[in-house]
């Protein structure tokens, strides 16, 4: 039972001051085993804050990140699943499923986590699943001004994943759930 927090596009301090307090009260240390971050934090203070929630932190570079050393893409294996991480501004058209599917095949991962659109989405295609955790602070994006803060928590348990989507809608935290599984550990394309 591995808990993986996926979030990104915080844009602190330029577009938002901080995470919503209701989110911060839930994100306590000790519960989460990994954090994967799609980028655009943008400053070191947020990096440090995320480190306090969980020491195992993976970040990729968003176009506004002040730390230039984050990689463009990252892949990691958690349990039986391979996860891929990319900010998404490199994939054009932004948020397009086909292009993201191409990236996913290129990275050869089961679950691809990208951001940039500041909009939560979860798609499934032949190569796997694409998840966009949205913006954890509700910062505006170039395409969308009215953004609900959101992030994603994945519970990876053997061959099954439960994705919990946390959204702040009208000041209240709403949680949704998505389940999926894979049948075998081999990663051959169908």
């Amino acid at each position, binding site marked *: 039972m591995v808990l993986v927090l996926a979030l990104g596009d915080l844009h602190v301090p330029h577009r938002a001051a901080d995470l919503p307090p209701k989110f911060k009260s839930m994100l306590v240390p000790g519960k989460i085993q990994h954090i994967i971050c799609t980028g655009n934090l943008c400053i070191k203070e947020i990096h440090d804050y995320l480190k306090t929630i969980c020491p195992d932190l993976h970040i990729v570079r968003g176009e506004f990140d002040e730390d230039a050393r984050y990689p463009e893409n990252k892949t990691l294996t958690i349990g039986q699943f391979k996860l891929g991480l990319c900010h998404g501004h490199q994939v054009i058209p932004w948020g397009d499923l086909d292009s993201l599917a191409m990236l996913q095949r290129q990275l050869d991962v089961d679950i691809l986590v990208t951001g940039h659109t500041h909009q939560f989405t979860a798609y*499934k295609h032949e*190569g796997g699943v694409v998840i966009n955790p949205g913006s954890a602070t509700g910062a505006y994006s170039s395409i969308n001004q009215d953004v609900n803060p959101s992030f994603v928590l994945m519970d990876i348990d053997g061959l099954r994943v439960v994705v919990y989507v946390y959204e702040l809608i009208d000041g209240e935290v709403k*949680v949704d759930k*998505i389940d999926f599984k894979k049948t075998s550990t081999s990663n051959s394309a169908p």
Partner: protein
Amino acid sequence: MVRKKVPEWMNSTMWSTAPPPPTNDDDFLRRSPSTKISSTGSNSVASRLNPAPPPSTASSVPSPSPRPRNGNNPGGSGEYGNSVGPSAEDLSRQAHLTAELSKKVINMKELRSLALQSLPDSLGIRSTVWKLLLGYLPPERSLWSMELKQKRSQYKHYKDELLTSPSEITWRLVRSKGFDNYELKSESRCMLSRSRITDEDHPLSLGKASIWNTYFQDTETIEQIDRDVKRTHPDIPFFSGESSFAHSNQESMKNILLVFAKLNQGIRYVQGMNEILAPIFYVFRNDPDEDSSSHAEADAFFCFVELLSGFRDFYCQQLDNSVVGIRSAITRLSQLVKKHDEELWRHLEITTKVNPQFYAFRWITLLLTQEFSFFDCLHIWDALLSDPEGPLESLLGICCAMLVLVRRRLIAGDFTSNMKLLQHYPTTNISHLLYVANKLRSKMLV
């Protein structure tokens, strides 16, 4: 045969200022090097007195208990293997035990008094006897299989209910409701649909009724249990080491302690419970009967609960000062020592100011598991569990005997040396210790 004791002549009663102590321990100790341990069936101390150094108390004290006293080296006690094979007494006891256990309805009183002098290791019956003494198995043999089945399935139920991870529980709910999980790699393309869930059902929930919240709150207990189990008896391969056997034993012990902690929110887990569980689990797991050994975890759980029920109050801090708390038990021990050996008591508590709490706390709360070697403990526990009034009475008796047996050194020592002695109690002949304890108790009843 090397024994780390004061030389025999120092122990003689000649050196005492007061009249010799009521116990015969001095005379008893004197017999060893000079006389070959003869495996006679004789019952009184007098016949063993050797006529050499001061024969002051040549009084023959008839043994108070009506049972044949097994004062010699029993087949089991590790260190004193002087005897040439088991004595006739031992053999008769073994035969007696086997006969008793094979009856259809076991006479508990008989069994208790047989167990009082500790069970022989060779028979492999300890597991069954302990289960009977703790009330896990009823005396009627025919009811055993039914009882065992019921208890074992109850334990399995507890484990399922309390030890399943919240992930697992969530998936079972999903499956039972018939929801379809998405297959990761299938031909279709779609948006994954979401289902709204309540405030309690997600991992970050802080709600009181949330299974996730309870799960994370238990993490601290789980970690502590884990640490303690790993530290239990590191010298015994059964409990520690890299083998998969040791790991599975540790897993079982952790499960038992965790189920107990969750069922008893009042006391949860307290450090030391692992030490009390260790002998029980060891004995059950090493049962020569395959079936019993495989269910050792479930059996050990119930017996552990039973044993602990007499001592529960010692683990609750609020009850420390109450009539049932640990302080009162320590006071009782102190009173017991005073009654039997005033001189020792006075020297210990008044002159050298050795507060019994300094040593007796560990003796009592951990049931002497830390004071003797593991295998000696098993013998002591035979006697403890055989007490019909509960282990506490015997325990206090044995503690008193422990003090009396080293009275020479205690009286000769000051605070530091006494503390050192009592906190690292020297290795002793266990059967002798039990004999003395028994005598003390029967004296109390007189």
